[in-house]
C-alpha cells in the first residue's frame, strides 16, 4: 500500500513533465523572449542588446499602420465569428437529424478544418484571382458583372476584407460546427416537443428556448473562435499579404512583416504583445466557463 503511494508520488509529476517541458519551451520561452525584445533595440543580425524601455510601444502606438491593423483585426475577428456562429448553428441543425448521406456531408463539412490551411488558401487564391477567378468566369457568363471589369476580389480594399473574412470563416467553420453539434445533440428531444405542445412556433422555440439553452456551448465555440482568428495570419498572408495598401493587415501579420521580413525584431515583438490583453481576457472567460461547467 505504502509502496504504491510512494510510487504515485513521483509518477504523477513525471507523466506531466513532457507537457510542462513542451509548454515552457515552445510557449513560455518565446513569450518571455518577446517581452525581452520589445523593451530592447534588437534587429535581425544585431549582436548587442540595449534596454530602451517603452520606446518601441510608443512608436507602435504612433504608427498609423498599427492602428489600422488593430482595427482590421477586430473587424476580421468579429466579422468571421458572426458568420461562423450563424452558419455553424445552421449546419449543426441540419446535421443533427438523420438523413440519407449524412455521413458524407459531415465528412465534407469537416474537410476545410483537417485540410492544411495553406493548401486551402492557395486554392482560394486562384478562385479569387484577378485573371483566372472561376467566380468571375461564372458571373460574367451569367451576365451579372461586366466582362471587361469584373470585381477584383483581392485588389479592392472592401472586397479584399470581405474575401479574407469569408475564406477564414470557411476554414474555422467546421470546428465550431462540431462543438455546436454536440450542444444541439445534448438538448433532450422532450424540450422542443414541449415547446410544440405549448404552442410555440419554430422561431420562438429557437430564440427563446433552444438557443438560450445552448448559450454555454456557443460561448465555448466563440472563445475558441476568437483565439483562432485573432492570432491567425495564414489566410491573410497567402491571399493578400495585408494588401491592398495595408487594408487587410491584421496585428499578427503586421508583427510578422515588421519583425521578421522588416528585420525590426523589437518593434515586431512590441506589436505582437498588443495581442495579449485580448487573449488574457478570452483565457479568463474560458477558465470561468470551464469552472462553471465543473461545478454544474
Amino acid at each position: 500500500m505504502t509502496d504504491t503511494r510512494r510510487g504515485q508520488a513521483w509518477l504523477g509529476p513525471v507523466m506531466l513533465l513532457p507537457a510542462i517541458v513542451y509548454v515552457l519551451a515552445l510557449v513560455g520561452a518565446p513569450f518571455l523572449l518577446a517581452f525581452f525584445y520589445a523593451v530592447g533595440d534588437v534587429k535581425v543580425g544585431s549582436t548587442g542588446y540595449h534596454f530602451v524601455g517603452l520606446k518601441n510601444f510608443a512608436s507602435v502606438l504612433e504608427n498609423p499602420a498599427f492602428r489600422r491593423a488593430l482595427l482590421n483585426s477586430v473587424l476580421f475577428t468579429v466579422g468571421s465569428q458572426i458568420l461562423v456562429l450563424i452558419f455553424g448553428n445552421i449546419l449543426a441543425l441540419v446535421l443533427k437529424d438523420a438523413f440519407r448521406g449524412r455521413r458524407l456531408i459531415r465528412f465534407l463539412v469537416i474537410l476545410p478544418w483537417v485540410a492544411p490551411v495553406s493548401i486551402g488558401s492557395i486554392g482560394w487564391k486562384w478562385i479569387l484571382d484577378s485573371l483566372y477567378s472561376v467566380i468571375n468566369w461564372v458571373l460574367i457568363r451569367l451576365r451579372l458583372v461586366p466582362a471587361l471589369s469584373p470585381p477584383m476580389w483581392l485588389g479592392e480594399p472592401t472586397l479584399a476584407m470581405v474575401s479574407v473574412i469569408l475564406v477564414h470563416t470557411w476554414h474555422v467553420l467546421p470546428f465550431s460546427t462540431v462543438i455546436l453539434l454536440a450542444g444541439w445533440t445534448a438538448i433532450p428531444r422532450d424540450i422542443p416537443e414541449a415547446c410544440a405542445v405549448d404552442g410555440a412556433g419554430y422561431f420562438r422555440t429557437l430564440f427563446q428556448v433552444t438557443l438560450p439553452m445552448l448559450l454555454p456551448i456557443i460561448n465555448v465555440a466563440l472563445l475558441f473562435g476568437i483565439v483562432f482568428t485573432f492570432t491567425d495570419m495564414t489566410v491573410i498572408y497567402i491571399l493578400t499579404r495585408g494588401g491592398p495598401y495595408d487594408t487587410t493587415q491584421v496585428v499578427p501579420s503586421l508583427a510578422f512583416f515588421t519583425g521578421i521580413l522588416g528585420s525590426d525584431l523589437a518593434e515586431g515583438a512590441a506589436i505582437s504583445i498588443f495581442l495579449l490583453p485580448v487573449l488574457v481576457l478570452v483565457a479568463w472567460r474560458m477558465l470561468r466557463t470551464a469552472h462553471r461547467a465543473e461545478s454544474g
Partner: protein
Amino acid sequence: MAIVRTRALTKVFRQGQAGAVVDVDLESREGEFLVLLGPSGSGKTTLLRMIAGLEEPTSGEIWIGGVLVNDMTPRERRIAMVFQSYALYPHLTVLGNIVFPLKAQKVPRAQREEKAQWAADLLGIGHLLRRRPRELSGGERQRVALARAIVREPTVFLLDEPLSNLDAKLRASARAELELFQRRVGTTMIYVTHDQVEAMAMGDRVVVMNSGRVRQVGTPAEVYDEPADTFVATFLGSPPMNLVANGRATVGFRPEHLLPAGFAAEAGPRLPLSFRLDHEEYLGSERILYGRLEDGRFDGKVVSRVPASYRDSLPAGSTHPFEVVERNLKFFDGETGVRRDPVALV
C-alpha cells in the same frame, strides 16, 4: 373539455415491421380520467404522442372535441402534455416556464401574470416562482409541469408517466394530489403508465394495451375482475392470476381466491383442490403461498394469497386441501387465450 376519439389508429415506424400501435379505436368520455396501461413497448406512449400531434399516424383518424385533428399541429389541437422528464425549460424561472404557453398564445402581459398566479396557487407552488427548475425537488418539478400544462386551460390533458421519476414514497402522495387536481379542474385526462397500481387507483377507466393493440377497456374493477383475455388477467394483479390448463380451456383464478378449505367467507359452491406448498412469504397483512396444484385435473404452479388472520403454519412440502369459490373461476380459450363462457371442468 373535449372527447378524444381514435378510429383504426395505426402507427408503423418502419415498413415491414410490426406496428407500434395497431387499429386502435378508443373514445374518452367527458371529463374522464382515462389510463393507458401496458408493459413497455406496448404502444401506449406512441398512442399518446399521436393524440398530442408529436407523432404522425400511419393510418386512422384522431378526433378531439368533434374535430378531425390529423393534420393539425400540436398547437392547434389545444392539448397540454406533461412529459415523463417534465421537460421544463432549464434556463427559465418557474414563472417563465408557466407563462411560456401564454406568451406563445400572445396573451397580454397583465393577464399572463394573473393566470400564472392562479395556476401556481392551484398547485401550491406560489412561493417557487423565482426559482429555476434545477433548484426544485422532483415533486416540485412535477407540479411546475402541471401548472405549465393547466395555465392555458387546455381541452385535454395528456400525461406520459409523470410519476415514474419520483421515489416510491413521494409517488403515493403525488398520485393522490394528481387525482384531486383532476377532480378540481374537471378536464379530460389521458394518462400513460406501466404501473398497474397507478392505473387502478386513478383511472375512471383503464385501457390495457399489449403489442400495439387494445386488449380491454373498462373500469378498474372490470379489468381486474372480468379480464378479457389471459394477458389482461396476468398483467393486472400482483401476484398475477393463476392460470391452469383444463381440457381445451384455461382456467384462471386470483391468488386471493385460492384459500385453505373452509376459510373463504363467500357463499356458494366450491372447487376443492389439493395444494402442495413450496415456500411462503410473510408480508405482515397477508401471506403469499407459492406451490403447486397436485390434482389429476389441475396441474401447475399457483400462488395463494391468504390474509394474515389465517394463522395455521404450513410446512414447506406439505399438501393441504384448498378451494376456490366456483363463481371466481374465469375461463379462457386454451389456444387464443380469449375469455369464454364457463365450461364443465374435466
